[in-house]
């Protein structure tokens, strides 16, 4: 469903990502790993339109998406989370998810300003949808808390919840387990599997935690210095001598 061909981006003389190929099939849980500075987040930024590729193509279900804005790409069905959490920290947990339901439940500006003409019906519909998603991440009881006041692990979960609320077909998770303890990581793995089945998602994730990657990903691509080092099933990739060299040195 997602296909990158010869994807590349150049910042001045630096080729941050070069000749990168990726092919993700529907329903897959795909991992993107690599040492620090390998260009993983840059790939995410290319896929979501934050950066414009200087070479190659990205296709989602056959439709070309390079050159589109992040907003358009989200509307086409790609949602993401961020490595450094980017929540709407002055808004409540519930409102964070409700913003993301923006395209799903619509009403005109006049309704917004008057709170009439079916306002409460639409808002209730939004509340119900948002709570349903929050409950998956057991955040339902914290719906009125300001999202900036949530503990770190829950902020990460809320970011996933917010991304899910845009009803994507492809979900990109940028280090979802960063800063979590082993128990939380375990729980997160369960949740990631659960949401993939519940919402028929395809998931691409960046992760450093090898246990999480080997545990849930069906296929991996290893990135080093902006180029693909290896791809395949977790056991193949993790035993690949090039990969071991890249991570541990000679």
């Amino acid at each position: 469903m997602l296909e990158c061909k010869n994807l590349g981006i150049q910042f001045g003389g630096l080729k941050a990502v070069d000749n990168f190929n990726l092919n993700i099939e529907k329903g897959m849980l795909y991992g993107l790993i690599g040492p620090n500075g390998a260009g993983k987040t840059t790939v995410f930024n290319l896929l979501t339109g934050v950066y414009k590729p200087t070479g190659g193509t990205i296709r989602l279900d056959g439709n070309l998406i390079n050159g589109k804005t992040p907003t358009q790409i989200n509307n086409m069905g790609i949602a993401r989370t961020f490595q450094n959490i980017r929540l709407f920290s002055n808004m409540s947990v519930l409102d964070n998810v409700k913003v993301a339901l923006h395209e799903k439940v619509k009403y005109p500006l006049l309704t917004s300003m008057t709170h009439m003409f079916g306002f409460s019906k639409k808002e209730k519909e939004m509340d119900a949808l948002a709570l349903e998603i929050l409950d998956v991440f057991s955040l339902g009881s914290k719906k009125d808390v300001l999202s900036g006041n949530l503990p770190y692990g829950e902020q990460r979960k809320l970011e996933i919840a917010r991304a899910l609320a845009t009803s994507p077909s492809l979900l990109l998770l940028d280090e979802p387990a960063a800063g979590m303890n082993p128990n939380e990581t375990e729980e997160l793995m369960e949740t990631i599997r659960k949401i993939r089945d519940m919402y028929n998602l395809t998931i691409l994730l960046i992760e450093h935690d090898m246990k999480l990657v080997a545990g849930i990903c069906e296929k991996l691509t290893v990135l080093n210095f902006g180029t693909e080092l290896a791809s395949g099933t977790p056991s193949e990739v993790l035993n690949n001598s090039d990969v071991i060299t890249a991570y541990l040195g000679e």
Partner: protein
Amino acid sequence: MKILNKKTIFNIAVMLLAYVLVFVLINSGILSRQYKSLIVPICVNIMLAVSLNLVTGFLGELSLGHAGFMSIGAYTSALISINTSFLPPALSFFIAVVCGCILAAVFGFLIGVPVLRLRGDYLAIVTLAFGEIIKSVINYLNFTGGSKGLSKIPLYSDYNNFTVVFIIMVICIVLISNLINSRDGRAIKSIRDNDIAAESIGIKISKYKVSAFVIAAGFAGLAGSLYAHNVGIIKPNIFDYNKSIEILVFVVLGGMGNIPGSIISAIILTVLPEFLRGADNLRMLLYAIVLILMMIFNNSKFKANLSLNKTFRKLGKED
């Protein structure tokens, strides 16, 4: 839902109480003429502060051209009501106010589309420039009376017609605070909190930036038209950058993104200069000192809250 109802009832009660209080004060003769003449400016300033809060507090963009939009509303409505004196006063006033509001919104759109590509300080400077350009153009044109301005504007919205002004103000406050708590308002607030994340969940950033700017400009125009029909004489100099900054001060002092705060600070800062009339030369100095003190107070309270939170967290961890 119940809490929401209680809140609405509370708001309605406050509004009614404020109305009755001011009505009694005007008609019982307790207030001197000097203070009576402050009532409409208070309402006008509240509208300006609340509308600018939409841009500065909720959208998170600094705009220093609000007085420009106010002047467009003031001049449009004044010209219309001067030239439609053959119509019944109520109709003439209605047309004037509506046109003032709409034209200011149109200018908000024309200026907002190119300008809102900029951010932060750059946006502030460009809006400041646009406010001054509007002033200069009004100064130059003939039909606006040049630097002499317009006079003999019918006094449709002076304190004898307080009810009309109050109703318009309440409508303005209600519309804006409703907007904040709606789908569009959430989108606006999300841009303030994190524009990259807002884009990533499919919010059309430029659309919401421009609409917040246009709505704020429209209400500034509305406030301007009430202002024109209160004082009867308008000159371009009234709407210079000092006025814009005065409005910004209402917003900052009342708290960014805090509508009741904007209302209260607009009331206090409109009445304060009148109280300080006795010390005429020191007026602006005292005004500045009050501002500085309130900022320090606001800030320290904010810091106290923060450290309180930290101690609670520490306590929680020890448990």
